[in-house]
């Protein structure tokens, strides 16, 4: 029997059975991956970022493989708040899956509306504010780069959802991620999720055109691991709330490095597509070695 307490992690008012999550946008609304992953074994899943109104998403192609990861330009295609609440959220409810609902919006008013609408619902334990999607126009990403806005939004959303945790997901595409994370902490965030995708671009040599209609896209997968570790380290030094490490995790060793760099939980992203067994293998590993969850890097010293 795994020692349940040993793998548990507490984020704000919520205790999760273990620190292994699936990242937003990777497994849709969760249900889609239930034939392949025992979702109830995980700390939880972060569902696809939703907006108040449904969004069609970007013109295809939307993904492009690289030897060290992938680029995506999904563009926040989602069913919108109402259908999410009516159809998607209830699907995972009876199956004891830990759910973190990812949301974004453009204006303060919209953030309040979406948080108010979600507040009375059952079936999830926290919200993740996606202030970091590189694949849409308008202010979503710009917001995530503006500490004052991050603090204000965090504050007003947090007030709407008592008893639930609030995770703020930050972008690596900033000069000083610590400042943004600190702003979220000031606003009352329970955790910082780091990182979202890194801006990237590829060109089709046959056509001489960019792969994506929007030209720039989000880079994820193993190639961003060192960047994500560095950002998690920076964030963990800037704030005292838990950090959720995301970016390039494709094996147990990668996940362990995030904890050493300062994370309290991790999310699996792109690697899930190639290796749907990974999240459960991570749970197995941390159940066998719960000490890996609390391990933190010591400074380098001469032997």
């Amino acid at each position, binding site marked *: 029997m795994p020692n349940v307490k040993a793998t548990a992690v507490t984020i704000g008012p919520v205790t999760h059975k273990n620190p292994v999550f699936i990242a937003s*946008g*990777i*497994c*849709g*609304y969760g249900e*889609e*991956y239930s*034939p*392949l992953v025992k979702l109830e074994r995980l700390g939880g899943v972060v569902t*696809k970022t939703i907006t108040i109104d*449904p*969004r*069609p*998403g970007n*013109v*295809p*192609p*939307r*993904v*492009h*493989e*690289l*030897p*060290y*990861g*992938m680029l*995506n330009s*999904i563009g926040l*295609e989602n*069913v*919108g708040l109402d*259908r999410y609440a009516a159809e998607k959220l209830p699907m995972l409810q009876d199956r004891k899956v830990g759910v973190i609902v990812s949301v974004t919006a453009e204006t303060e008013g919209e953030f309040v509306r979406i948080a108010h609408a979600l507040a009375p619902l059952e079936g999830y334990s926290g919200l993740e504010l996606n202030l970091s999607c590189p694949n849409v126009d308008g202010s979503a990403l710009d917001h995530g780069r503006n500490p004052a806005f991050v603090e204000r939004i965090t504050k007003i959303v947090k007030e709407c959802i008592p008893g639930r945790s609030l995770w703020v997901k930050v972008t690596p595409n900033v000069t000083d991620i610590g400042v943004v994370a600190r702003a979220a902490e000031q606003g009352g965030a329970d955790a910082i999720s780091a990182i979202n995708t890194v801006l990237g671009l590829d060109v089709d040599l046959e056509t001489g055109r960019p792969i994506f209609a929007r030209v720039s896209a989000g880079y994820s*997968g*193993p*190639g961003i691991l060192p960047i994500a570790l560095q950002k998690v380290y920076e964030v963990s030094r800037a704030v005292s709330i838990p950090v959720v490490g995301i970016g390039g995790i*494709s094996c147990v060793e990668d996940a362990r490095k995030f904890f050493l760099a300062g994370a309290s939980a991790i999310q699996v992203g*792109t690697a*899930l*597509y*190639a*290796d*749907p067994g990974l999240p459960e293998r991570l749970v197995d590993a941390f159940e066998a070695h719960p000490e890996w969850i609390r391990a933190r890097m010591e400074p380098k010293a001469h032997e």
Partner: protein
Amino acid sequence: FIATVRENLQLSSRYFLLRISRPGDMPAPAAGQFIHVGVPASGRFFLRRPFSIFDCDDSSIALLIVELGPGTRALRRRQRGQEVDFYGPLGNAFPVMPGKRILAIGGGVGLAPLYFYAFRTLDGCGPSYRVVYGARTKEDLFLDNIPLEDESVLLATEDGSYGYRGNAVECAAEEFGRDPADVLFSCGPAPMLRAAMKLAEERGIPHFVSLENRMGCALGACRACVVPTRLGDGSPYRTVCHDGPVFDASVIVWDELPQP
């Protein structure tokens, strides 16, 4: 699922037939469905690759694959006894239409779902299902290895080295003239699908088409593999992996279809 390679048969310079064991708990697939296969190569990152089911019996699944890049190359190199990791069957299927005369047009590996339809969906329903299969040359008809010479299969080669001289759609148009059909199926390269689309429109018959696209999850989760449609409900996009791969051709916005 982890399956084992039963047979890996080189059919021509670029085509091969990969037969793998069928895991006991894999649901029975329908023609048009596909499996999502892990690339058996290490050292770099690979997304999985989708392949239509070409044939499936109680103990094995066969895929008809054309080697295009590193993913298909790694699969070509898999040998008898080695493992292949996949999940599926995924997606929808070509509709079963009892009593209808179906004319199916396949180009290249687009033959796979149409072949499976003929030999598994309709076992023996004969001339109400006809397949026109077009290839560049005789070599790509695999006549030595796949039993295509059947009265319900029409073969076309672009260089005329076997069967009809011309492409599959031209051959289908001629066949239609000889003996009309109620429904058109098609699967193959984009230009072929567009030509088939025209044919169906001209003859005023329904047309079901199997589309391809780059995939992430193949489960309808990531919204990577969408194609533009005339449908609404929040988004005009539908996923090839979950809503497809088979679509009523009239709902697709052909002009905006991404090239794979």
